[in-house]
């Protein structure tokens, strides 16, 4: 491999977050679903996949079930919040992620609570085990490419145009004979499915998960990525993921103690988020406003 072990690690994270960010953009940017609960789907996917794989399920099956399980929650969330709009919808979806977080923390018999789940096996597909990080990078790149390709096809298809139409004017779309509730739940399920997949990739890469990985600081990170890249822009989300995950790594050259490095990075993400909202709310490649 031509890149250092550390860079391999960063690239793996970038590809995982690309899936996560693009899937959030599908719901938030393309469909106009104000979902601040995306991080919960990510967590549900990570836990489902980890627990199933520990029980001995083959990795691919565990990963896909993780995605499907997350998308079931996506369906439930859309059904429950269908009547809400604007910041109330945003708060309800945020509340949903708090509920999931507190369940991960308290269903100790299943999730081991705050102790987290250690020893998550590395993926093994058709007898081949992904052992080294270099191999994992290739694996993650492959899954990322497939996921982004599928989401790209969806948003460019006539179905994707309906999603955008729903964001722009749902009433007008309904009098054209389209079931906008159907569109919303399909979009949310796809979005949650890929969030679940990326959660699975994360869990089996880090091999240890606990509830704090799926809480507000993660939410801030992916919101920052999507808003910096621009709503309704897959290209924007990809570029922004790479930049926002990679650039703070420069902080490592400052030789800060590791207990300070984490908070500095988090504060930086939050500062970028506020700055982009104030200076360029449409992000780098976005053409749509967040309403």
């Amino acid at each position, binding site marked *: 491999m031509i890149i250092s072990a550390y860079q391999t690690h960063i690239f793996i994270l970038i590809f995982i977050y690309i899936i996560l960010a693009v899937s959030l953009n599908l719901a938030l940017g393309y469909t106009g679903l104000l979902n601040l609960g995306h991080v919960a789907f990510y967590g549900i996917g990570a836990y489902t996949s980890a627990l199933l794989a520990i029980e001995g399920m083959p990795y691919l099956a565990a990963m896909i079930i993780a995605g499907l399980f997350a998308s079931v929650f996506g369906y439930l969330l859309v059904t429950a919040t269908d009547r809400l709009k604007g910041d109330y919808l945003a708060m309800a979806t945020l509340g949903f992620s708090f509920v999931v977080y507190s369940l991960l923390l308290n269903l100790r018999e299943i999730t081991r609570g705050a102790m987290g789940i250690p020893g998550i096996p590395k993926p093994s597909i058709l007898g081949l085990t992904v052992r080294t990080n270099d191999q994992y990078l290739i694996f993650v790149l492959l899954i990322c490419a497939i996921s982004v390709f599928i989401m790209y*096809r969806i948003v460019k298809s006539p179905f*994707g145009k*309906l999603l955008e139409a729903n964001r722009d*004017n749902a009433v007008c779309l309904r009098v*054209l004979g389209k*079931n906008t509730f159907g569109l919303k739940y399909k979009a949310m399920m796809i979005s949650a499915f890929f969030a679940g997949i990326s959660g699975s990739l994360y869990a089996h890469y880090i091999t240890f998960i606990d509830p704090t990985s799926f809480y507000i600081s993660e939410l801030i990170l992916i919101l920052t990525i999507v808003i910096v890249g621009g709503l309704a822009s897959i290209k924007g989300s990809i570029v922004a993921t790479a930049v926002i995950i990679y650039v703070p790594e420069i902080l490592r050259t400052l030789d800060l103690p590791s207990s300070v490095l984490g908070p500095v990075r988090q504060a930086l993400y939050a500062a970028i988020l506020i700055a982009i909202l104030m200076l360029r709310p449409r992000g780098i490649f976005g053409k749509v406003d967040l309403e």
Partner: protein
Amino acid sequence: MILSCKDIYKSFGGIKAIDGCSFTVAEKKITGIIGPNGSGKTTMFNVISKLIKPDSGTIEFKGQDVTGLKDYELAKMGVSRTFQDVKLFQNLTIREHLQIAMSDTDEKLLSNIFRGKEGDAQKIKEVMELVGLDKPLDTYGNDLSYGQRKLLDLAIAIAKPHTLLMLDEPVAGVNPRLRDSIKDILRELNSRGESILLIEHDMNFVMDLVDHIFVMDAGKVIAEGAPEEIQNNPCVLEAYLGGSEEGTKCL
């Protein structure tokens, strides 16, 4: 009879917007609903197209009771409508608007993913020519003027498969030249056998266009008939010039 509404009632927090309204729309005719501002015309339109649930009353479309249907289900059965306050889809192109209106398969997710763009270029061209919207198909909704949006709204209502076309003040706020061309478009559509129901605030616009008129005031139909009958009806003038008490007596 393509559409019939019977005894529709609707109040908003104690205010009776629709107060026992009944009327019918004949097939292949242009029917107009006129009435002063606040007489409940647009509310009635919203009730018919299911955007608002009536408190009571029944609606039949093509002989079927559609009272309990959802807005998009009725639209699928063949009701097209436009809006007085057109917003459309700001971030979609004209072509995409028309494709959405024409397609009946775009809601299917899986069959859509690996299929290219669809849309009948010929049909799009026809509709654009019919309404006379002279703009490149790649123009975004955001970049259209008010008049152009009015035309695009009309175009998507026409392009959508339908048997009844409902137009909410098609010429409100448009310039006289566009007004005349919209009138021509409607005549042309009618000559092709379309059934049209339109709301208009402006009496002059409808008089030489429609076959039958219903006059609404205070949520009720106060008069109906051919345009020339309506023109000479004292109740209608009352309703327009105020003193609607006289008007309600005429029912």
